[in-house]
């Protein structure tokens, strides 16, 4: 059973709170970042520990930092780096901002500008060397961080014909996947100098592909879309010499029957294989992926 252990407002206006677009846990499990329509990014600290009895007071969030002068429009996504020292936010103002932790506080250290319109998602690669961003301008950008923490543009790709909604990194390799309003997903790989499109899968869902997530070893991928279908992809030819020959293939589709709303969000639990989806009907659904 899931039960609520606390409720906190991203926006100080509790009467008329703004939309919270995204939350993200820091890898140490004690820091949470949130972002929303109020153009702000908040960094929260988790105080105390929740006990089995569910005593609500023993566990709470305390807002440590409000980052309110980085963006001029709604902030769509936040993500921590894997080393835990950086945070990246993506906004409808077309900018991506990198924050660095100093003395426990996150402060803006770089602004990655170049997208023409709303940036929908920004994430660090497993090694933290790259940040991938995607936008309504149909492009996917790869930003490379050098040893001094300076970012430069590594590649700009425009493989989609519409708004790119989401990008997700493979859990262990320099492999990225993007999904779009054009109903397709695209895979990208680093060839040592440039990022290149490795595989294109069209008509993955009817309508927009909203999100996707890899499993713990990165051999399976789940996508969700406007058609309220949850689709599972499996990687074939893994471990062959040539990276080009490893391809993804759809193996199963699960129609969520009891809704007519899109499924917007998906997350794959790395330890117990449970897939959680969030949809336009305000419901969270959990399902086990079972055996392959």
């Amino acid at each position, binding site marked *: 059973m899931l039960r609520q252990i606390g409720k906190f407002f991203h926006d100080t206006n509790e009467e008329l709170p703004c939309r919270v677009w995204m939350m993200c846990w820091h890898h140490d499990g004690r820091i949470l970042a949130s972002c929303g329509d109020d153009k702000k990014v908040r960094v929260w600290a988790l105080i105390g520990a929740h006990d089995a009895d569910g005593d609500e007071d023993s566990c709470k969030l305390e807002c440590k930092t409000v980052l309110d002068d980085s963006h001029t429009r709604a902030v769509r996504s936040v993500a921590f780096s894997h080393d835990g020292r950086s945070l990246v936010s993506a906004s409808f103002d077309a900018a991506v901002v990198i924050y660095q932790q100093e003395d426990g506080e996150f402060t803006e250290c770089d602004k990655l500008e170049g997208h023409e319109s709303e940036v929908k998602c920004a994430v660090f690669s497993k090694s933290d060397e790259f940040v991938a961003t995607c936008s309504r301008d149909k492009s996917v950008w790869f930003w490379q961080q050098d040893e001094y923490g300076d970012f430069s*543009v590594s590649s700009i790709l425009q493989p989609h014909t519409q708004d790119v909604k989401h990008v997700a990194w493979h859990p262990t390799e320099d492999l990225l996947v993007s999904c779009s309003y054009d109903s397709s997903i695209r895979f990208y790989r680093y060839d040592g100098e440039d990022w290149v499109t490795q595989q294109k899968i069209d008509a993955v869902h009817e309508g927009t592909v909203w999100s996707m997530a890899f499993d713990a070893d990165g051999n399976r991928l789940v996508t969700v879309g406007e058609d309220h279908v949850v689709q599972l992809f499996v990687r074939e030819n893994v471990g062959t010499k040539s990276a080009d020959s490893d391809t993804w293939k759809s193996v199963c589709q699960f129609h969520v029957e009891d809704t007519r709303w899109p499924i917007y969000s998906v997350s794959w639990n790395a330890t117990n294989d449970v897939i959680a989806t969030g949809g336009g009907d305000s419901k969270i659904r959990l399902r086990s992926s079972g055996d392959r």
Partner: protein
Amino acid sequence: MEDSGFSGVVRLSNVSDFIAPNLDCIIPLETKKVEKEVKDEVKINARMKKKEKLPEKPAVKITLADCLACNGCITSAETVLIEEQSFGKLWQGVSSSKLSVITISPQTITSLAVKLETTPQDMAIRISQFFKKRRVHHVIDSSFARHFAHRMLLEELHSTPATSRPLLSSACPGFVCYAEKSHGELLIPRISKIRSPQAITGALIKHFLAKKLALSPCEIFHAAVMPCFDKKLEASRDQFKVDGTQVQETDCVVSSAELLEEMTKEEQEEVIEGSEDVEEENWLNALGRGHIIGEEGGASGGYADRIVSDFIAENGGTSKTETLNKNLFYTTVTSPSGDVTLRVAKVYGFRNIQNLVRKMKTKKEKTDYVEVMACPGGCANGGGQVRYDTIGEREEKLKLVEENYNHLSKNSHVLEGDWEKVKNEWDSIDENWRRFLYTDYKTVETNVTQALKW
């Protein structure tokens, strides 16, 4: 969209969203106010008789100039371009003018030579004859005009204060378009005011040649064949209209690939040996004799290298070039005493342009002059060049095009003999002729739909 010939820069900075081109264009609403008749007041119970009223409203037409003045979709502009700047229009222009001139870029010649497996010299003759058989009067080399630009590069750099550097080359219309639409404040003051070879040729034809032959600019038709679709956009700029008229100095631009298609549509034509042309060689006939003007410094116009060599000729020193990636080159000139006296870069491709802009924003860019080209690989790899199917083939042919280009003769008779002559004649026709070698840029305001904030 994906396969349009426009450079990535132009496409990306003009993304059309969810709406098809014709649906979202607001230009007709803005520019042509439909005059409302007072009679049209709504009256209760007054039935309108059909046929009687409703005066014919003129069909609103979007022109390319409208598209260029708007920061909206490129798709509309593209549709209009395809209509306005095609071989159809070209032949129409040729047949309805007293004098017709076609300017051919050397990148076009080398691209077609590689495709048709011949020498650039032979290709130049074939292209020239192809047009002349179709009643074109002169087929000329765009490099002749580039020579005017090259002669002014160092002078312009000298007059650019350190705070306004780097000076950015202006020959790439994709970059100019991007700068005007996306980074006006930062980039426009830094773009070289010297015209591109195409634009200088336009003035040479519609000003110099028109005056010389006592023709009106509208009696002359001038088209250009370019390695680049964005050149069509450039040709349509307001800055390149003949003074006080609506006549463009370059009426029409077609791409290398379009020329190839047009030339191979019909049976291969035999090349006529020994033409009847007994005139002394000049800038108007040299190309037809297979004499192409070559330049040092690569297939993108050689602006950066020209600055370096002119600078060294003037101040001494030695240059060293570092290749950071296949589209990024840095050259430094070191004086005999060991000081770095000049920093010049070649920056090709959208990715490297982004990094240049980032460095300029943070004032980390230390170069004096940058040759900027929107296409990776520069103009030899322009969006209008002949296309090949596989990546391997593309790379192989691009290398051949570049090699061909680099082997073009650097000692051109035309340049040595005719350039000074044309310059002096132009000067005697109009002592302010130099103004035709310069242009300016302006920030394109974002349109209403893009200013919406939520």
